[in-house]
């Protein structure tokens, strides 16, 4: 693919609001996970929740869109000067020439969960004020972000479970290559909700302790919430010299099972191979792999098998989900931004909460954050339905 500059990016999750807070936490190998006290959930698990949402208000004029996910999204649009950067890009390209490709797995489904507790006796109808279009439909998030940023370019939401916000980089790259837009805002958000908490528990996939990716005692995920955005542009004069670059995107399907990964990670391997081919790079060109690493026994084993087959045992690799939790639909953009920070600041992120790496896993797993030259990162996102996506992100000065 034609490489694209990531001229601006932002992030919000349990580690903090903005890249500086997240970078500090990564450097200290700090986790933001806490015991679950979300809403009325009675589940013995840990979560990565974003503080301050209860008092946060969506912008005036967009009150219909008020829900936890859109609040988190707005928080990320306001972080790192992101919306100002988009406004400047909008003046440069025109509001109709910037695409908006957003990912989420649950959007504001929490609003439907809450409304179902307040159904009218007898008729069973939902309470007044229930705003399906602006909060529950998956596109509500893309609609909200487009309106907040005042963009009118091509737009849609990708909802492919936990690969959603990685895959939007591919949609944007294709739309720019096809001439449908000149630049694009990608990213997305997901928030904690009862559907995912009780749903993952029903599949016996939630851990009772903070999740421990690649640990010999790993026993499940910790759910998280958050948002992140990136502004993608064709390489141009005047762009910041240390802007990271999107070099490759690889997508695949498992064709195996709806919720379990292929045991040897066949689909995962294919996504990584396609990402490298799309970037015209080889395995040796990658300095760090940000793993999907959810900390379930089978997911980590399958991903490890695929990584080792493709990269061997030397390439440093880690999952940052011990720090952030699993952000589901927002995991892709979160880890893409972490990969950009790794390139820009020369660090290999450690793995909070992982104590002792499973000897059955053969990747070169990074436990403690350390400094290193990181020219290019490959980051993995895999979801239910066997939906896989890998991105290659690198230092623009080398390309």
């Amino acid at each position: 693919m034609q490489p694209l500059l990531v001229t601006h990016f932002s992030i919000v999750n349990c580690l903090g609001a903005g890249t500086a807070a997240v970078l500090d936490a990564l450097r200290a190998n700090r986790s933001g996970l806490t015991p679950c006290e979300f809403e009325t959930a009675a589940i013995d698990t840990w979560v990565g929740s974003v503080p301050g949402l209860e008092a946060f208000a969506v912008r005036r004029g967009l009150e219909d869109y008020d829900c936890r996910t859109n609040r988190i999204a707005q928080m990320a649009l306001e972080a790192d000067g992101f919306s100002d950067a988009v406004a400047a890009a909008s003046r440069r390209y025109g509001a109709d020439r910037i695409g908006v490709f957003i990912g989420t797995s649950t959007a504001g489904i929490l609003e439907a969960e809450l409304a179902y507790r307040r159904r009218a006796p007898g008729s069973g109808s939902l309470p007044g004020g229930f705003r399906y279009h602006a909060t529950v439909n998956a596109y509500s998030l893309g609609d909200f972000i487009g309106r907040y940023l005042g963009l009118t370019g091509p737009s849609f939401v990708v909802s492919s479970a936990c690969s959603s916000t990685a895959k939007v980089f591919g949609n944007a790259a294709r739309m720019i290559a096809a001439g449908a837009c000149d630049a694009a805002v990608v990213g997305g958000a997901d928030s904690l909700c009862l559907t995912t908490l009780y749903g993952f528990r029903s599949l016996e996939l939630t851990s009772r302790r903070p999740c421990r990716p690649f640990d010999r005692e790993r026993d499940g995920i910790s759910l998280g919430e958050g948002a992140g955005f990136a502004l993608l542009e064709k390489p141009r004069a005047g762009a910041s010299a240390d802007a990271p670059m999107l070099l490759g995107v690889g997508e695949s399907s498992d064709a195996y099972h709806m919720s379990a990964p292929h045991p040897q990670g066949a689909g995962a391997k294919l996504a990584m191979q396609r990402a490298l081919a799309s970037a015209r790079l080889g395995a040796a060109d990658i300095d760090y792999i940000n793993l999907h690493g959810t900390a379930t026994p089978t997911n980590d084993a399958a991903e490890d098998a695929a990584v080792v087959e493709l990269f061997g045992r030397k390439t440093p690799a880690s999952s940052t989900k011990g720090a952030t939790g699993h952000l589901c639909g927002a995991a892709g953009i979160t880890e893409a931004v972490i990969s950009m920070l790794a390139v820009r600041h020369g660090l290999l992120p450690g793995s909070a909460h992982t104590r002792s790496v499973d000897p059955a896993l053969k990747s070169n797993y990074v436990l403690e954050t350390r400094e290193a030259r990181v020219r290019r990162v490959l980051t993995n996102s895999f979801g239910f339905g066997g939906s896989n996506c890998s991105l290659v992100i690198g230092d623009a000065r080398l390309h």
Partner: protein
Amino acid sequence: MRAYIEGIGLLGPGLSGWQAGRAVLAGAEPYRPARTVIPPSELLPPAERRRAGIPVRLALAVGREAFAAAGRDPALTPTVFTSSSSDGEILHEICETLATAEREVSPTKFMNSVHNAAAGYWSIATRSREPSTSLCCFDASFAAGLLECAAQVAVERRPVALVSYDEPYPEPLHAARPIAGEFGVALIMIPAETPRSVAAIDLELGSAVALETRLADPGLEAAGQGNPAARSLPLLAALARGSAGEIVLKYVAGTHLRARVTPWR
């Protein structure tokens, strides 16, 4: 952006397949609204067949018809799935369960609640490891899918299948988001003409004021406005007529998608 249409699949109220439906859409036969009949999917292994909901069966049925017409191997073809609400029955059931004291969410229901469930089952059924994306754009979900599919065809220079589907929600969600009878459509889109291609489509995004194309038959027009996937009907009618024409689909933020249809044979 130009793409060629090589195969079409269709299921909707009173429209039982493209072969049966095209005469109605061309105006050669009257439209008689009737419940959508969704055949059981022979594509799926028995375990998956039991778990798959209506929208999954709908998507698989139209996808299968389109691939059969194109004579292509689905295992080698990337897919774009698009739907406003995917499985509405599951959203309803999970919300009902979460409103009870026990909150015993069914693991199968949860697994199938993802928006990309149809894409997941399709990949299992066809053994396809090709890329697949699952989109949502509310009422413009078909237009968004068409745009994404055309962009993939134009950039990757390879065939891509578009599958658009939507089903009604049960109450009480139906009152908040009314969607009419189950509707599914699939298009196999390719980068260059073949002996099987039926038309060329040139797509263009527009922001100037343009009137959405309406259907002459009031029954079809109502079906088209009632279900996001059925907003494909003006395009399907143009393909069924087999004459050159231009149609306008509403998109987002006041924009539209203009499709110029040129019959190929």
